[in-house]
């Protein structure tokens, strides 16, 4: 088991290097030279030249690249042009809404998706199954921003149950925060729950056909024991995988949904950075999100140690 864990951790390193390199390259594939892009449309040629020297942009490419790695290792993500503060600070400032939204959406997705998938598997090929799977198919076909707009139309404008947009920070009370995040969380979570439902269902179906389940039934174990104790635990592996992937999809989905609901999170941060060509922020957010994604994947892989005994003996 230990070797498994260590191997997984080591495997992260080259991926992290690639992530850092991709983020670095972003500013160099843009048309125009990086210094004048960072300096902004307002700067004079002298400012641009000064910035070039200051940021070492006149050094050869590979030197710049290594300096970039060094800065990242120190946690220095640079300075935002537009916001005029360190990128890391801007990200930490905006993290709260995105983290809360993603967590809420994940809870919605899991609470809706896993039971749906399990129920569908239990009633395989009956109406419940067909209906749930049809619903799930529709769910993965609807873009989350469209669902968000429709939810606003029905639940905010017509019924007035939820605020139409905006985010209430935690410091003003968690009830208001939850209220402001409910519609976005559902817009994100419902779509994701469809995916989880489909995977959970097929995972359950596969497991239910396995030998040891048949044996368990033959042994005379109650249906409930069969389903919930044995099958579910084994179906957890692909399900947990999908939940892990869902977290990553939700983080990226929140980018879109934050725009629809005007939530000042990381999504809004990166979109406005793109529109303003604030490259340090784009690079910083992209690295942070990729980093979270990598950690989530790592956690999912490490969770196999718990769920799959076979892993422990590799």
């Amino acid at each position: 088991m230990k070797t498994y864990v260590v191997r997984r951790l080591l495997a992260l390193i080259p991926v992290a290097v690639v992530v850092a390199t991709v983020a670095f390259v972003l500013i160099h594939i843009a048309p125009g030279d990086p210094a004048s892009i960072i300096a902004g449309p307002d700067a004079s040629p002298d400012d641009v030249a000064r910035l070039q020297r200051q940021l070492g942009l006149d050094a050869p490419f590979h030197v710049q690249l290594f300096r970039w790695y060094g800065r990242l290792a120190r946690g220095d993500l640079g300075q935002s042009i537009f916001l005029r503060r360190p990128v890391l600070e801007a990200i930490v400032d905006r993290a709260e809404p995105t983290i809360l939204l993603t967590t809420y959406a994940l809870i919605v997705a899991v609470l809706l998706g896993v039971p749906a998938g399990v129920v569908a598997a239990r009633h395989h090929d009956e109406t419940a199954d067909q209906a749930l799977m049809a619903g799930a198919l529709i769910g993965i076909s609807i873009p989350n921003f469209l669902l968000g707009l429709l939810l606003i139309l029905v639940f905010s404008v017509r019924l007035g149950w939820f605020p139409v947009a905006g985010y209430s920070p935690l410091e003003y009370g968690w009830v208001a925060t939850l209220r402001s995040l409910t519609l976005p969380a559902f817009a994100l979570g419902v779509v994701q729950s469809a995916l989880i439902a489909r995977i959970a269902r097929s995972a359950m179906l596969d497991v239910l056909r396995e030998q040891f389940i048949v044996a368990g039934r033959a042994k005379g174990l109650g249906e409930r024991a069969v389903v919930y104790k044995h099958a579910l635990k084994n179906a957890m592996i692909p399900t947990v995988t999908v939940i892990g992937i869902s977290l990553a999809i939700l983080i990226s989905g929140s980018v879109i949904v934050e725009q629809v609901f005007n939530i000042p999170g990381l999504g809004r941060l990166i979109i406005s950075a793109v529109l303003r060509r604030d490259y340090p922020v784009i690079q910083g957010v992209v690295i942070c999100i990729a980093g979270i994604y990598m950690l989530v994947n790592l956690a999912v892989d490490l969770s196999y140690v718990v769920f799959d005994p076979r892993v422990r003996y590799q």
Partner: protein
Amino acid sequence: MKIALLSPMLALALITSAVAQPSEQPRAGGVLRVAMIGEPPTLDLHTTTAVIVQQITWHVYETLFTYDRQYNAIPLLVDTHTVTDNGRTYLLRLRRGVKFHHGKEMTAVDVVASLKRWGRLATPGKQLWKNVEGVEAKDPYTVAMYLKDSSGALLMGLARPNNGAVIYPKEIVDAAGDNAVKEFVGTGPYRFVEHKPDRHVRLARFKEYAARTAAPEGFGGRRTAYVDEILFVPVPDVAVRLAGVETGEYQLAMQIQQDQYERIKTMPAVVAGVIKPEGWSTAVPNHKQGLMSDKRIRQAFQAALDAEPIMAAGFGNKAFYRLDPGLSFPEQPQWHSRASADLYNQKNPAKAKKLLQDAGYAGQPVRWITTKEYQWMYKNALVAKQQLEAVGFKIDLQVVDWATLVQRRNKPEAWDVFSTGITFNPEPAFSTAASCGWPGWWCHEDKEQWMEALARETDPRKRRAMWEKVQQIFYEDVGRVKLGDFFGLTAVRKEVRGYQPTNESNLWNVWLSR
């Protein structure tokens, strides 16, 4: 010297839905959340004409004079003033005991430093300073301004809120030089607390505010900070802005789409505030550099446009826009003129095509920067683009956020045309529509002479004739391309009392009933 008197019709024209219940007692307390079109490009009022900056910062900073109901100049930070030497020397006696937010008392040295900076950096300031010989502090509470010639416009210039001659502490002025000020300290009823870009600008009541004693009149008289805090929230999405007022998340939303007017009237908790007039929509050509510096191309641009669909697309509701050639508004009969009306809204594609041919236009793209944060600017540009392309123009429409547009328009090599609105202005001498230093760099010899004369002249009839001359040159030389007048729409919640919808939008003397 007479302060220019504006027609009472103007005051009447600033019609609002009644928001204040006269019998109700104002109460202090609460947080007022105002949804704005986006981020302010800066908080240094000396450096920009962007209306959003004035709407936020004039609660923090104050000018020497301000406007009353009729848009006449009345004293604010000044106590009394005398004019001597045939109108060439102004002695401004400052009020005593006016504190800055950081505790220091405002004295003449602060005023002198601020005025000099304003004269150096601000568009109306630079215009006014052409006539200024010097400014000095005669004693701690007296400032002397020496003019080269008498002026009919000085006090109005000092009263102007937009890009206004606000008073900063001397040390902050000195520290900033020509760069934007780093600290935002003024004498106003609210003090600056924090600016979190993309989140809010937060102001809080200034407890030691030295209010004038007279009853409020227009923007003058007593300014009382009833609400504890004001939060200006950037909400670039107009749908979200309006929806936020509907649900109570914001109490006030600026720049609402005019075609939402009927909808707002059906909302039980919201009142529609109409700002009539708000401004006129315009496309500003670049006279300094690029394609539009060629007069024939400008004239072709102007000739091709059909204003009705352009304005209809931008503003929807017919009650909210008006086609009119004047540089000033019909609500200002002492300034409004129909001179050169034949060059406005020409709808003449044949003439445009011929002009393009004469100019030898070979299809080079005309870079037009606009923004969706002011929805109407984008729609105006979109429809105009279609009309221009029908006569042979090639338009490269670049859509950016307003803060970026305001920055980019300072660089002559970056654009050929940009969208903006010329907001209502009671004093034409400082109008950005006719200013040479303002982006667009429309510098025309005759026009400059008329503008300078306008600033000095005191006889209202002569001034009007001069402004008319400027208007003629405006059309003939295509200084800017006027698209049409428009009225503004704000959405205000019923619990907001005392709010008068104006372009400048003041939030002092405004309270929340619950």
